[in-house]
């Protein structure tokens, strides 16, 4: 009897220790998220100020485009522009990852339509066509679904082939997983070589030079994170010079808390 009692006490103690460990890990994660968010947030103001200062300085420059001052100034403006993109992308990432997920019924078609509306300027500038098929309603976080579709569709616009207007299709199919759907964004862009495909979801990983395609390398990392937050996953099927299909497995219902 005594032995059994001791075993139970030991199990209970281990459970308590595990619980304490989990709480500590959660707290540490939360602290890091807050830290990343604050850094990005506080860098935004000086980056914007520097951008304005450089622009003013640029207006006082000699008009000669070949003047070395002018070239250095253009490089400075390019650099600060990249910094602003980076700061914005880190802010978006930490905001989405750090916020509490609030699951409710989301009409993916509505989200996709409103993302297309937001991206209308880019779509027109690139001569892109975006087709949104019938999409289901599922339990999800509204902000995260919007960030997911916005990143996938704007990537599909951005990574286009020279002289080939982007043709983008957003559709959903049945998943092999029970009670899940697959949401896909298909493009006719540059595609991704097979040996690079597993890299694209890693944080701060890019496959191109900054002057070829802008970006911080956070968009697809965020998309994958959103899929995981919903109990799903992400993958890509792609052929260079043909196009890519980014697909997200999403459960139709979220487990009730």
């Amino acid at each position, binding site marked *: 009897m005594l032995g059994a009692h001791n075993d139970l006490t030991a199990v209970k103690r281990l459970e308590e220790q595990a619980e304490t460990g989990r709480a500590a890990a959660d707290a540490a994660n939360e602290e890091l998220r807050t830290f990343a968010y604050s850094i990005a947030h506080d860098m935004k103001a000086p980056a914007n100020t520097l951008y304005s200062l450089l622009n003013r300085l640029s207006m006082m420059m000699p008009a000669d485009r070949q003047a070395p001052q002018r070239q250095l100034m253009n*490089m400075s403006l*390019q*650099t600060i522009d990249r910094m602003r993109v980076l700061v914005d992308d880190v802010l978006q990432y930490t905001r989405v990852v750090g916020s509490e997920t609030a699951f409710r019924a989301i009409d993916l078609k509505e989200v996709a339509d409103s993302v297309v509306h937001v991206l209308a300027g880019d779509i027109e500038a690139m001569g892109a066509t975006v087709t949104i098929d019938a999409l289901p309603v599922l339990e999800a976080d509204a902000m995260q679904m919007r960030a997911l579709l916005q990143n996938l569709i704007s990537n599909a616009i951005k990574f286009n082939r020279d002289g080939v207007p982007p043709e983008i299709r957003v559709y959903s199919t049945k998943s092999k997983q029970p009670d899940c759907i697959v949401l896909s964004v298909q493009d006719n862009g540059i595609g991704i070589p097979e040996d*690079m495909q597993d890299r694209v979801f890693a944080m701060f*990983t*890019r*496959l*191109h*030079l*900054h*002057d070829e395609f802008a970006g911080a390398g956070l968009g697809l990392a965020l998309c994958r994170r959103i899929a995981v937050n919903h109990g799903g996953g992400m993958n890509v099927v792609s052929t260079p010079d043909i196009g890519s299909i980014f697909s997200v497995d999403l459960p139709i219902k979220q487990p009730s808390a």
Partner: protein
Amino acid sequence: MHSDAQNPPINTAILIDDEQVDQILYKMVIDESGLVQSLMSFRYAQEALDYLQKPDRPEIDVIFLDINMPRMTGFEFLEAATAKLGASFAKIVVVMLTTSMNPDDEERARQFPVVKEYIHKPLQKEHLERVVELLAEHKG
């Protein structure tokens, strides 16, 4: 110093860095130093690797190598170049770091005997002078 300009101690240097602005700045520093005779630059590491495999290329004194690059990173370049061309595909490789290396990276970099120096970006004249010293040691 004019004799330096006529006969720079670093004969052939290669710069591998994906950032256009960094490349332009480093070329200015290299030009102003007068320490380098001829400089070639690449923005994708794979292109530098292709060049190094050309049979008629000159001997390379130093490669300034960025680590964080798209597609082929600096580490992957070191691995591929060592596998294809042997451990001494250049006299010296200088690894250019943006931030402090994490211990895993340091471990990884130590495996390559051709890496003689790590510097923190941006590249400066003192770094080039250090390369001149290392080349003198290399000659023995």
